[in-house]
Every structure is written in C-alpha cells, then in structure tokens.
C-alpha cells in the first residue's frame, strides 16, 4: 500500500478528514473517511454547506470552535438538554437556556462578531430589575446624545446620575466588564 492514510474507523476507504484532539495536553490524531466522519458527527461543520442565516452562523462557529476545543476538556454535552457543541455548530441553534452557560466560552466571540456587543442593555422581565451596568450604559448613551445636541443642563444631570450609580456599583463590589460605551 502507498503512504495514503486509511480511515481508522472502517479501514476501507482513504481518510480525508484529519483532526488533532488535545485533551489534557495529550494530543490524539483522528483520521476518518467522509462517510465515517458523517456518522461521527464530529466534523459536521465541514460537511454540506447550506445557505441560511443559521448556516452562515455555523460558519462563524466553525472559525471559533478550534480555539475553544483546545481549552475545553472533552466533547461536553449541555446538562440541561444534552446538546453537544457539534450539534450547535451544525444547526446554529441552542437547545435550552443552560446552553448559554455550557458553551459560554465558544459563544462569546460569536456573539461579539454577530452583534458587535456582548451585553444586554434593553428591558427585563417584570419583577427583575435592569442591572446597574446596563442602566449606566443606557445613561451614557443619553449623555453622549445630550452633549451632541448641546443640551448641557440635561448632560450634567445625567453625568451626576451615572456617577451615583457607579459609586453604588463600586460599593456592591460589581464592576462593569465592558470598557466604556461604544459609539454608534
């Protein structure tokens, strides 16, 4: 036989999918043919490109998956619904609210790419307070606008309100994770 690598799963067909798994600093090589790769589900994001918003998203996921795979121990499944990262990368859809924690590391760069932001500043369900950080960000936007429109009295009032909130936040031990407001 020539130097061609055969699929380690079936041993019948030449391997066309090659991947290196890094688990606890131990590198393991995986070589599969297309058919076995399909069955494995592991290379799903490389197969059958389809054109929809979800699949465009899946393209983004693929770019970020590599980096995340290095940090993340195994192919973990979401404890809430059993979704694996491969499932997510294939469809672009999450399985339950807990997926956002389970795949937080992989989602963060994707969310940043898609939205240009990572923090919610909109409304909250009745009975839940809008978090201080979000309120500060909302006020900062209004401040920028007030300054731009030369409404200085309002701007001064907003500035004081922001300072007050920031002080209360400092006292509570929470700090804004995002630098400052983005100009838009």
């Amino acid at each position: 036989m020539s130097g061609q690598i055969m699929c380690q799963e079936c041993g019948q067909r030449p391997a066309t999918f090659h991947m290196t798994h890094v688990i606890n600093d131990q590198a393991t090589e995986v070589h599969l043919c297309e058919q076995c790769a399909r069955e494995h589900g592991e290379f799903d994001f490389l197969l059958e490109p389809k054109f929809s918003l979800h699949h465009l998203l899946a393209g983004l996921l693929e770019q970020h998956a590599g980096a995340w795979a290095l940090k993340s121990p195994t192919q973990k499944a979401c404890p809430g619904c059993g979704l694996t990262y491969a499932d997510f990368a294939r469809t672009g859809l999450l399985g339950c609210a807990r997926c956002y924690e389970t795949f937080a590391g992989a989602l963060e760069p994707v969310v940043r790419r898609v939205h240009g932001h990572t923090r919610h500043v909109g409304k909250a369900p009745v009975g839940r307070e809008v978090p201080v950080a979000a309120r500060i960000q909302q006020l900062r936007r209004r401040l920028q606008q007030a300054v731009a429109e030369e409404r200085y009295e309002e701007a001064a009032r907003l500035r004081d309100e922001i300072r007050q909130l920031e002080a209360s936040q400092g006292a509570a031990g929470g700090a804004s994770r995002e630098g400052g407001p983005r100009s838009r």
Partner: protein
Amino acid sequence: MSLDELLKRERSGWMKGDGPAADIVLSSRVRLARNLADTAFPPRLSPAAAAGVVERVQAALPSLSSALNRRFALFPLKGMSRLDRQVLVEKHLISPLLAKNDAAAVVLSEDETVSIMVNEEDHLRIQVLMPGLQLEEAWRLADAADDALSRVLNFAYSDDQGYLTTCPTNLGTGMRVSVMMHLPGLVLSQQAGRLLGALPKLGAVVRGMYGEGSEAKGNLFQISNQVTLGQTERELTDNLSSIARQLVEQERSARERLYREMRWQLEDRVCRAYGILTNARLISSDEALRLLSDLRLGIDLNILPHVPPQVFSDLVVATRVGFLQKAASRQLTPQERDLRRATLIRQRLQAR
C-alpha cells in the same frame, strides 16, 4: 371568534391602508422572541413537552387579555388544514416554519394586530403588526404584551445577555422591528440597489415579502434591524423608523422626478397596468403583483384618482394562492386560480 371566520376576512388590521406614510409603508411590525426558562427550546422539545408549552401559554391568555384589553384565542396547528395554514402565512400572521409544525399553535387577537407564534424557533414569538409607519406604537403594544406574559410565565433571561433565544442572532432584546415598504420609484429610477445596499452600514437588512430568503416581488421590501444585542428596544425602534422615514423621502422625490421627467412613459405604464388588470381573464400571481404595484404607484401619483388606495394591499393578499382557495373552499388547479384571480381583480376595480 372562529378560525374560519377569521381566515375568510380578507382585511387584517394591518391592511386598512391608513396610518402615517401609508402610501409607501404598508405595515410596521415588532417581534419579540421569548423562551420559557425551564424547558428545552422548540428544536429539542418532545411532542409531550411541546404540548405543555402550548398549555402554559393558553393559561397565560387571561393576563394578556386584561392587560391589553383585547380578546385572544389560541389555535393549535394540529388538525388545521394545509389551506388554513397557508392563509395564515399569506396574512403574515404566522411564518412558513410554524405552518409546518404540528406541535405549534398560534394566538391571535380578534383584530389580528397581536399574534403569538408558539413553538416556532422560540417558545413564543410575540408579534404586533400595524398599518403604515407606526413602529413606536407597535413597540409599545408588544412591550405591554410581553410584560403581561412575563408576569405569569418565567422567561429565560440573564442580566448580562438579556433574553436567551434559540438562535444567538436573536439574543438580548430578542427584537426584530421591520417595515414593509413599496418602493417602485426607487426601483424604476434604479436607485433601489444602491440605497438598499447601504442599509447594513446603518444596522438594517432587507428581506423579501415573506421573510428570510424570500424574494422581493411587486417592489415590496421588508427592512429590519440587523442586531438584537447591545442596544435598547427604543434605540432599535428609533433607528429603523429613521431609516424608513429617509427611504420614504427618497421614494417620494424619485416619484416626483420620474413624473416630471418621464410623465408620459409613467402614465402609459400605469394605464396599461390598469387596462390589463381590468380586462385580463387569466392572470398569474407574479404578473398580478407586478401590475398591482404599477397601479398603486398610479393611485399615489393621482393618475388614477378614482381607484381607492387600499385596493393594493387588499388584492396583494386576496390574490395569493391560499386565499383564493379558501374563498373557493377547495383546492384549485393553476388555471382555475388564474381565472379566479383575474375575476376577483376585475370585480374589485370595477366596483367603482
């Protein structure tokens, strides 16, 4: 309120043809994606659990009714005929995705202004549809509906990321605001490509009439916000309103310029459309949509002062395949449809 009654009614609230800038903005829509915190999202939901979601939404309706002072009814998709589903899609009350799902349901207010898709991509898609450019009003109503529901349903929400949605592209506010615009002036003067192509820089995207992946026919364009996270609902609403207002201005000046510079070509086009629409015996859905767009332009430019403007949105919906079949109460062959479509258009236009 029975589903049959509701489906045979041609004119939903959004088709009244009134509202600000209604000559160019056919409708304004606000949609909020919401999920229940303790249940798997619809794509991973068992049929039994999906039925549970429908039950919980049903139980939340009294709270919604009293907050919005409107009557609501829930209709499960299971048992609904293919035809009824198609009519709901054509009226823009449900999405093509929901129409295919037997585990889904739709909640409708009696005037069809508020609808809630249950078990679409997210557990709830709260939708408000209004005529003309009224995004702010639509947002206020959607906000009130969302508040009322959130008092009785525990929505998946995190302080950092906002409302948690099945697809991360809807994360945060879960809000999609959109306008349906009729832009024949920009298309005829070949400015549509340039102007609409610049929208992504302003945070907006263009889709066809029936949402993602559908084609823009009859010079109708659906424009909506691109991102859902990192801006407040009010900012998203204001931004899209301002884009829509600018496009209305551009469309108006394109129409004026066309009329000034090419009056006879334009009148000829409009009157030929009127001639065909009032005389054709067989007409396809695509041809009807194209000619109805010309007709509407002629109405707006006062070339056809005797034709009432709402004929356009009425006929755009009433001549869709599902609607014709619903009116006929049976499946129709393509030729039967073309015949009925042409007859319907002639009747409507000659009723004056």
